[in-house]
């Protein structure tokens, strides 16, 4: 770098990056679930299909807190933000995540496409959000295994409810949540086809599909 050149400001490089469409702000997602009794078989299958699982699958243990920021006039839908921290790697930064509404688009799209922004933050994040006025909606912890194949990330995890006292967290269901996701910049729709092809390889064990949350919301909860 020339010493005499004017330094590039952060806003300049950010706008350049936005123009060049290299910021991965879209998430392509497929989800499914598998019962506890069948998860071992699925893990074996994923070990065979995914990259570099010679030393055993990578485990993770995360805790997620969801905040919402409401408008004072209470008319628009509140902004939801998620804060996720790794319980097994305490020195890694917190991830602040914004997930947008899924792109309705055309029904033929193989995966759910929604905008997603992930930002690494330091530990002061929760205080900062509280100062901004966000309130905690809910929290849960997730524990399971992570695999990757090329750009795709596959997680097989169990969701736990966090209990107030020092009791161990209890699972909310007898099943594991399986998610196949890719973070990509806008416009790279071909990855959806690859994801669908991979999901088909897991087909008899787990059915990975687009889940429409709005329809789920109308179903009655027993």
């Amino acid at each position, binding site marked *: 770098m020339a010493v005499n050149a004017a330094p590039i400001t952060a806003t300049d490089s950010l706008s350049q990056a936005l123009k060049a469409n290299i910021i991965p702000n879209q998430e392509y997602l497929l989800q499914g679930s598998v019962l506890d009794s069948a998860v071992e078989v699925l893990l074996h299958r994923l070990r065979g299909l995914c990259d570099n699982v010679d030393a055993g699958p990578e485990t993770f243990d995360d805790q997620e807190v969801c905040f919402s920021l409401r408008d004072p006039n209470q008319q628009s839908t509140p902004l939801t933000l998620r804060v996720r*921290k790794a319980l097994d790697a305490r020195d890694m930064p*917190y991830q602040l995540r914004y997930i947008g509404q899924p792109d309705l688009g055309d029904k033929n799209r193989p995966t759910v496409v929604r905008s997603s922004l992930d930002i690494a933050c330091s530990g002061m994040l929760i205080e900062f959000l509280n100062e901004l006025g966000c309130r905690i909606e809910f929290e849960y912890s997730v524990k399971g295994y992570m695999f990757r194949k090329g*750009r795709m990330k596959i997680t097989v995890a169990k969701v736990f409810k966090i209990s107030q006292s020092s009791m161990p967290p209890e699972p909310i269901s007898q099943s594991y949540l399986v998610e196949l996701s890719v973070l990509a910049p806008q416009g790279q729709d071909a990855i959806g086809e690859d994801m669908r092809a991979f999901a088909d390889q897991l087909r008899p064990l787990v059915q990975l599909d687009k889940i429409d949350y709005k329809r789920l919301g109308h179903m009655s909860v027993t």
Partner: protein
Amino acid sequence: MANSVNISIEAPIENQIQEITYDGQEIYQAPLSMSENLARLAQKIDFAKSDDEFCNIKKEGESSSEVKSEEDKEPGYQSSLWPWDSVRNKLRNALTEVCVLADVLSIAKEKRYMVLDPIQPDSIESRPMVQVYGRKKALSAAGAVLLNGVERLRASETMRMTRNMPDFHIDLLRLRQNWRLKKVSNTIVGDLSYRTAGSKYSQTGVFEVTKAPEEQIAQAMSMNAAGPTPSALRVTVPPELQGVAFISVVCQKEQEEVVTATLSSSALNCPGTLPGDGAELHWQQKLEAAQNVLFCKELFARMAAEAVQLDASIPHMVVGNQIMATVLPGIQLLIGLCHNNGQNNNNSEAVKTKVVTSVSRCAPSPQPEERANKNEHDHVLEHSLHQLLRAVHHAHTHHPFPHPATGPLGPSKRRSLAGPMAADRYELLDMSKEQSLLEQIIQQAQHFFMRRRSEYVLDTIAKEVKDPLIVSHWNALNSPTQSCVKINIMAYGYDAVCRTSLVVHVGEKTLKCICRDGKVRHLSYELQELRDLIYCQIYQHQMTAVQAVGRCMGWQLLASSSHLGSGPVEPLGNASSCLLASPNGDRMIAIRCEPSVGIQVFIAQSPRKDFFVSELVQDKKWENLGGAFKEVKLEKMEGKNFLNKMELLMACLSSPS
């Protein structure tokens, strides 16, 4: 230019010109009236195509056709020129047909006057013999194909059973358990490159598997009856990967000539080549050798590229198959790719080195028939190079996983912490720089030399200096670029009294010494600096040890100085001294210690023995001012070492005689 021009827009003439009169007037064709227009359009309808529509209007047709026919008659009957005529005729015919059909169906439904009966279709005359012959022919063709396949299998099976030949398929199975194979049209090919392990080298390692011809197997078996059975496979590796190769790493003193003429392509690892073209080698050995050749080629190509790109103070040179890099001033590192193709070339035969199988690290005894005993291939550095390239491959495939799980795949831990920890531009640039293989191996070679030199210095000092014992403990655990040694200086018999320790961290080009006073000194790669430091430490130890012994003996320390300003200037370090007084107070010992000269001991007696009253000094009490110091001849004294002598001296002077 400034004037505006009016433009008028008119529609073009709609009606065609029928006639232009002689006076220029145009007579237009009158536009078609509504009925005429409708007639024109109706003429365009093709009744042959649109049948189904007219079936629907059958009923209306019945009622409206009479109306229409009356209407048709009214304007003058110009049969062929009138457009609705054809329409009317067609509709009327259609109506007739449909009415007839309706009538027939209603009559048939009643079953009184008409009944509908099915008709048997004409039976085809069957000719069974033709069928039989056709089927027989087809079956025989299929059977012939199957028999053909079975014949081949049976032939190979009988051959295997009778002559005890190796089985092709079992061998193929074994090959498949070790190597990746693929069937491409008729041939079986395999891949022996490190692609799936993370290598990005462009040279492919494709080999072909064929069946070994039977005569060759039979010949090999008859020649080698007692040995293992040859395999039924023959493996063909690409010609550039044939033979054996290794990377030779040699550290040597700097040579006068720039390029060393002969490259020691000693056939260290080459298996014994059988007569023929080496095809009788077992396929496993052949493939492993070829894979090794590919690995060595990749390693050398990578390092050669780095050597050209890197900007070192003394530039690295790449000549043919050799890379020459300067490790320390006067020491060169030669990395060469030795590839023995299996063909007889002058090089492999001319260089018949006495193969030294163990690499001796400390000064090797030179044997007269060896060329230069410094030109030994360093197995440790070669192994390090292999490990470094494997680490590069591993990094290409094993990317770190994000924690927490929603993070982006790809960035390393440092990179993902760069955001929250507000790393600046320079830190980010630093993160992206990674050390090349050549730099790493040069660092390891530098450390190797530093360690050797430090060992040499410590060993020679330990041999030379017997009085305090120099004991060095090297750490068992060290890294390729850092070692640690703890040096204890103590006297024999007095190790509990006083012991001086120092720690030396040996790096790549520097040494870091942490002495007993807590000072940290950074030394360069020159041997003399370490030597000087150790000598200074030895003499400091003597001084402190004497004081400690004095304390044990009850002698009192009157004065001590580590950096004495009196006396001649020392070439090395500073002189130190101390003054001890006996428990009675009547004797004194003065010790002066210098690293280059040694130790001098003087003693004095407090009431002077040689006091004589003189005119100036008359009182007898002045004899209590101490006498002159007299030097002690230490080398004539009894005692195993300096401290022992001092202890004896103190004991002797303490006694009340």
